[in-house]
């Protein structure tokens, strides 16, 4: 085992699966880069370098650069998946779903059901989410709620390198379309990652920290901010349990419910916007299941209902942080029925 960044973990998962199964191909804009230029190939390896090196090992018939043409990329990947490949397509930023959503919403996601179960679509779409890099309104969203809302899609939101590797391998071996949401600011975070292949099943939440007073459910980067908040709160005598669902579809409501049955209190932390989001979704599910157990209202800590602002001073206020999480937890714990 060695410390690896999430970027490395994802790259490793891709390489291992491509070695193992020649049907696995990577396709997207600048997944290698340098095609049709006088300079070097693999010049990008993905805009943030996540797929770098794959071209050298697997060649351009399996690491496929494309024009700027997201509908064709997603559609080609869906069509290839339905006919025998296991493509890992890249949607550079999740914000771009708007130019290609049909191929996921109405095509890939619906094939299995609408064709009476006779078509499998083992497609993985890797896409970047998250604010915090000053990338403004059209490159900073966390639109996993849109994917989670679509029956037929599975949605993965890894928070760390270890999970990213195991979940991506699982995604590639899964026979349904999977949207794999990578947070820009999680790429450089390190954790212990085994060199060999391993799978993390979908729908199994990770209990990141045990605690007795309050349950915090947090997604992706928010897991880390929640941990910061929990450290602070521990000093105040508040003992937080932190649960990382890892996949929003399927959602491991059981693990969350078991925790809330003990703690009686739930705070959900989600970097995305509040309306029809994953935080509200979990609140509704747990609010119903744990009605008798809840000692305080379920609180959601989310972005405001606005686009992502550019100016870093505003962006910082936009993104939920440890301070806001801690404050929400305090209020939840202090709540007296």
């Amino acid at each position, binding site marked *: 085992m060695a410390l690896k960044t999430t970027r490395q973990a994802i790259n490793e998962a891709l390489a291992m699966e491509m070695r193992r199964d020649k049907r696995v191909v990577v396709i997207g804009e600048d997944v290698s880069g340098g095609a049709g230029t006088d300079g070097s190939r693999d010049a990008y390896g993905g805009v943030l370098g996540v797929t770098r090196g794959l071209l050298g090992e697997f060649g351009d018939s399996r690491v496929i650069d*494309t024009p700027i043409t997201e509908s*064709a990329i997603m559609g080609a990947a869906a*069509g290839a998946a*339905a006919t*025998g490949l296991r493509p890992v397509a890249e949607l550079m930023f999740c914000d771009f779903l708007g130019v290609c959503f049909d191929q996921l919403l*109405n*095509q890939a996601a619906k094939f299995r059901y609408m064709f009476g179960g006779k078509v499998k679509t083992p497609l993985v779409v890797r896409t970047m989410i998250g604010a915090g890099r000053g990338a403004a309104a059209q490159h900073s969203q966390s639109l996993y709620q849109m994917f989670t809302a679509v029956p037929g899609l599975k949605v993965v939101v890894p928070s760390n390198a270890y999970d990213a590797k195991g979940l991506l391998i699982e995604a590639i071996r899964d026979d349904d379309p999977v949207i794999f949401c990578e947070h820009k600011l999680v790429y450089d975070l390190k954790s212990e990652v085994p060199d060999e292949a391993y799978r993390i099943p979908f729908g199994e939440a990770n209990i990141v920290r045990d605690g007795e007073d309050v349950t915090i459910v947090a997604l992706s980067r928010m897991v880390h901010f929640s941990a910061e908040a929990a450290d602070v709160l521990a000093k105040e005598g508040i003992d937080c349990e932190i649960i990382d669902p890892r996949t929003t579809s399927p959602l491991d409501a059981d693990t969350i419910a078991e925790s809330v049955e003990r703690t009686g209190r739930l705070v959900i932390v989600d970097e995305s916007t509040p309306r029809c989001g994953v935080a509200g979704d979990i609140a509704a599910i747990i609010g119903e299941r744990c009605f008798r157990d809840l000692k305080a209202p379920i609180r959601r800590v989310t972005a405001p209902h606005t686009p992502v602002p550019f100016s870093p001073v505003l962006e910082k206020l936009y993104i939920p942080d440890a301070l806001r999480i801690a404050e929400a937890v305090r209020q939840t714990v202090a709540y007296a029925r």
Partner: protein
Amino acid sequence: MQMSHERLKKAYRDMVTIRLFEERVQVEFTKGAIPGFVHLYAGQEASAVGVCLDLRPEDNIASTHRGHGHCIAKGCDINGMMAELFGRSTGLCGGKGGSMHIADMNVGMLGANGIVGGGPPLVVGAALTAKTLGTDNVAVCFTGDGGSNQGTTFEAMNMAVVLKVPAIFIFENNGYGEATGHSYAAGNTDIAGRAGGFGLPAVTVDGDNFFAVHAAASEAIARARAGGGPSVIEVSTVRFFGHHSGDAQLYRGKDEVARLREERDCLKVFRKSVTEAALLSADELNAIDAEVAQAVEDAVEAARAAPLPVAGDLLTDVYGTY
């Protein structure tokens, strides 16, 4: 090269099957036996059959909302199709898809599609599978004149050229997208001409003439199998029914349909040309007509008698595991 007797008969049988299937669907729909919406393919038979005759089961096609003809030409079982239209559990999709979503991967039918422009990107993918796995399969996409204006269609053509995949784009130009004329909807009405600008061979053929369609398709398929990349074929054709069953068709000229049925019926054209050339006799053709009529009748009977889906079916087939 002269087509074999068997192939000629198959071509005719497939075209007649489409025609009689569609005419019967119209009747059943009007009676209320078929729910939802149906878009009938009658008038365009030479296109589907001319294109599909040289395809193998391993080759894939993607179709449109007007998909029955493509399904039949690609080898879908008409019993399974009719049952699907009737919403029965014996349908090709277990009754879950209906007219706009008939698919059968066993014969390379990747699905009718309710989204105009939904199919072209998928076909680039099916063609990519062939190229990546090193088979000589090809993938064919049917799109209408209306769908020729959709962005996804343009993207798919460019991508197919860039990736040099064995994809063939068929544009069935029947002059209408719903109630809007192609002459209004396309800034340049020459679909093949516009498509050719994307860097792939593009031709227009007379869709009333099965042989013309077949010749163009043959060439494109052979090129694609040989690694020569994608092509476009525009088929100029006609729609005998409305946009969907029940369409009042106020937008059509007076007597337009009657005239088309008289002058531009690809079945009549086929019959005339094969009998005049003494390739098939009227008796042979009539025998096929009768056979097919019976088969369609049987399909309706079977569909009517078939079981409906049961409540449990509502929740199956959505995820492999979840």
